[in-house]
């Protein structure tokens, strides 16, 4: 059992998402950074799709009631396990009774690069009942995960059967190389690669140039449904209503205000705003971790470049898998 002592701003059970039900209006949801959750799961011998916890803005406290093994991925928020620092992308044994603490976003002052989210995997995975093929919490529709809601103080989460025997569980800590953020911008902006969307041409030439040229600020009104950006007003050549059409995570839609919204896992399945672009799959994890009030730069790519980026991410994941296998680390199917 994992006991939630302090959930922080928003903690929820998430796996790789609830897929296959979009045409019924059911959003995929799931960990916003599937790369982080996948890595954390592999580090504790879980299948990639095991459920973990998505933690937002640190400030949380979790206690483990049994001996287990955990891995934290994403931003670590100065995480400690009974006072000992816990590094992100490390696999660490936990004894019954130990407490994991993540400091709040402002706890260590403004000097550190503030992140937004962390993903925690526990050996055996969080064992809530799967609904429609997933253990993810659908916060908007109120089902899945733990009682269909965000975690609260005092919640107790069961864990499933683990691949790790006592010897493996207690093996000394080890880690993997964290995902590559790419070249840092001089101004600290995070670069996201974007394919022009179906309504790209609907925007004025100036708006299309601003899309690529602007340093977009991520506003605090961002959440699991979408990241709201602030910057130049993206104007359309002409107004007029659009018919409802499919949207997927990464879709950059532009409401009449001209301020774009990048949709994320909990966004609705169809939208009626023009889609000026779509963030490529390989870069969605960066958006999940991009800090509030931080800056984004959108970089135009074409589909072959997007697929090459995806392939490169898959290569990194296979290298991690090979490394773990070579070290005799198990992996649940």
């Amino acid at each position, binding site marked *: 059992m994992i006991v939630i002592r302090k959930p922080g701003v928003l903690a929820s059970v998430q796996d790789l998402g609830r897929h296959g*039900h979009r*045409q019924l*209006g059911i959003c995929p949801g799931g960990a916003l950074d599937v790369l982080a959750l996948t890595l954390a799961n592999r580090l504790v011998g879980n299948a990639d799709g095991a459920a973990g916890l998505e933690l937002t803005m640190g400030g949380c406290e979790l206690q483990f009631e049994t001996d287990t093994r955990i891995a934290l991925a994403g931003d670590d928020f100065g995480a400690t396990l009974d006072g000992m620092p816990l590094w992100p992308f490390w696999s660490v044994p936990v004894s019954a009774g130990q407490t994991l603490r993540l400091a709040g976003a402002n706890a260590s002052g403004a000097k550190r690069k503030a992140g937004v989210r962390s993903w925690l995997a526990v050996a055996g995975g969080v064992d809530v009942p799967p609904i429609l093929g997933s253990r993810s919490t659908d916060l908007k529709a109120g*089902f*899945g995960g733990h009682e269909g809601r965000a975690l609260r103080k005092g919640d107790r989460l069961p864990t499933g059967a683990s691949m790790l025997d006592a010897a493996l569980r207690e093996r000394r800590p080890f880690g993997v190389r964290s995902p590559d953020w790419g070249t840092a911008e001089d101004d600290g902006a995070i670069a996201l690669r974007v394919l022009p969307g179906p309504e790209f041409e609907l925007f004025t030439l100036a708006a299309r140039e601003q899309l690529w040229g602007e340093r977009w600020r991520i506003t605090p009104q961002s959440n699991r449904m979408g990241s709201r950006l602030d910057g130049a007003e993206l104007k359309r050549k002409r107004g007029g209503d659009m018919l409802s059409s499919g949207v997927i995570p990464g879709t950059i839609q532009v409401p009449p205000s001209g301020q774009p919204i990048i949709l994320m896992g909990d966004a*609705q399945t169809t939208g009626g705003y023009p889609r000026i672009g779509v963030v490529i799959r390989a870069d969605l994890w960066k958006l999940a971790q991009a800090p509030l009030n931080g800056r984004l730069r959108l970089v135009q790519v074409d589909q072959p470049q997007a697929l090459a980026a995806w392939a490169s991410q898959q290569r990194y994941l296979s290298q991690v898998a090979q490394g773990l296998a070579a070290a005799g680390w198990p992996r649940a199917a």
Partner: protein
Amino acid sequence: MSGAPFPRLHLLGDAALLCELPAPATLAQQQRIWALAEHARQWPGVGETLPGMNNLTLTFDPVAIDLDTLTARVLEAWPKLAAGAVNGRLVEIPVAYGGEHGPDLADVAAHTGFTPAEVVRRHTAAEYVVYLLGFLPGFSFMGGLPPELATPRRAEPRLAVPARSVGIGGEQTGIYPLVSPGGWQLIGRTPLELFDPAAEPPTLLRPGDRVRFVAESVQT
């Protein structure tokens, strides 16, 4: 049928393809959208099929099927699709109209110039078609609202529309499956669950279904 316009194809990110028909949206075009969805679901490499209004989004695995192949398959399948191939079920939806269940029935009556009873009569006399589901799990975008019942959305949207409320928003009618913010005019409420994640299938309605509202009670 040979004269049916081809869809415009456009990538939606690196692993989804939008197939969009020229305006205006018609039931005949929407039927071909559903038929294409049924077809495409069988193709190796295609993941989900998501009908929109007058369009279809296909998610695909670019490793299993490349864009050129997928494009060719859509364009090859398109002229052969039969518009009537998807035959939805007829679903009857009981509604308690007016009163606390439909607080805006009087406003709709005032806007349309009918009595509340006449609004209900016309709303229940029509047959509706579920064009697509979206917005919320089980929320259907339906066509077929008698044009004379069209009523603009409320100036001030409600923060929490009760689940299972039946409403009119502009030229559309629909049912809120869950408590959610919403600006439609609420004319009644159904006892039926539109979305039950534990049920198989989890939604009462599916794209292509036909719907009739049945007045269980009318409070004016």
